[in-house]
């Protein structure tokens, strides 16, 4: 029973967090990062993401014009660095306002 409860909680938690991942990625990329360092940085603040989720997401956000990227050599390896584009910054501001609004109204309910 308690194991079922845990499984259910875990799946609901994942669902709850899924929508916030994009916001977390956009916010972290106000500072330039490459894939691995971004993943580590997100993990440190408690937003863990699998690489098979993060990398396709980065690609998608870039194709939507929200991110810019460039290949550069660092520590003897070629790395792809991502950074928020001007369009991405505007989008992040709007999404952040949305997030705060949602959070505030939820906070009142909870």
């Amino acid at each position: 029973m308690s194991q079922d409860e845990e499984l259910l909680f875990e799946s609901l938690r994942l669902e709850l967090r899924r929508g916030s991942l994009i916001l977390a990625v956009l916010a972290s990329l106000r500072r330039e990062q490459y894939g691995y360092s971004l993943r580590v940085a997100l993990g440190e603040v408690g937003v863990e993401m699998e690489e098979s989720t993060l990398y396709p997401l980065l690609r998608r956000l870039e194709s939507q014009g929200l991110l810019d990227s460039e290949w550069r050599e660092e520590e003897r390896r070629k790395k792809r660095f991502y950074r928020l584009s001007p369009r991405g910054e505007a989008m992040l501001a709007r999404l952040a306002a949305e997030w705060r609004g949602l959070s505030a109204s939820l906070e009142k309910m909870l």
Partner: protein
Amino acid sequence: MDLVESYLKAVAAQLPKATRDDIVAELRDEIMGRLEALEERLGRAPSDDEVEALLREVGHPLTVAARYRAGPQALIGPELYPWWLFAVKTALLVMACVTLIGLVVRVFSGDLYAGQAIGQAFGSLFSGAMTVIGVLTLIGFVLERQEKKPDFIAKWRVKDLGLFELGGDIDAETWGERLARGGAASGAAKPGPAVKKSAEMSPVARAVSSAIAWAVLLLWWTGLLPVASIRPDEVAGVLDGVDYGRILAEVVAAAYWPVTLFAAAKVVFDLMRAASGGDVRLTALGDIGFGAAAAWGLLWLWFWSPLSPVIWVGTVTEFVDRVRDLFDRSAGDGGELATILMMIVVWAFVGEIWRMVRAAGRLVAGK
């Protein structure tokens, strides 16, 4: 290091050429970063097992590569799935009805013992069901990958919803009722499935359900839908000294291509009708055309087909006499089937003429 490279090669094989190198390079960097972190933590180079465990954490090449693919990640997505399920349920229901009718026909015509017939019916129903599910899945797969989903998903009308009561409530009680109605609706010469249409349905929904019914009939007629127990040419039986099996086989042989053509044309026409939004004049024209073709087919049955000697009567008086005989005589005197067939053909002919007259009216009035 070889492990990582073979892993990346497996991922690369699944990726589209245009983005392959880019994605693999980035993935390589990610894995290297993780390996370095692992090495730092262990204070030594990781073993092959540890590297493999790390790669397993990254994910199977098929899964990883799939995440980068642009198209949908499901065979049939959540939006389309209920439609697919409904189509499967309805098709299976229709097939079960057709099989059951065929089973009854076969057992009563003395072609097979009940046990044998039931076994064969189940066998053919199973393979038929697999075919239908396969075809519907293929259609769903293709639709799922269209940019724009078909109109009927978004632009439905409340008055069309009667159609969805058909497969929605499959339970024993309504089942028997539907079966009885389905059995009564299909004629002896063409025991095709009859999709019940309620009078309130919109023209488009009627066109779609008609297209589905005719498509099933067409598949069955051409043997593509292996509901083998009632392939018409396989029914055999001698009744009242008339070899109905032979007659049926000859009728089917002679009518094979005309009926195939008729059904195919009907499916195409119904789809056109649905696409045109159920245009009244187009529908009326079609009803006249198909009515004329069907009437011609019935005239052929009456005058020239191998069945003609059994059912033909020269005058109305003779017709009435035969019908009266059917009701007067006690069962078992013989000749009932011939008379019933005679009545069905005449009734169907009158029905077709009536349909054409009504269609002509709609053609003129435009509504």
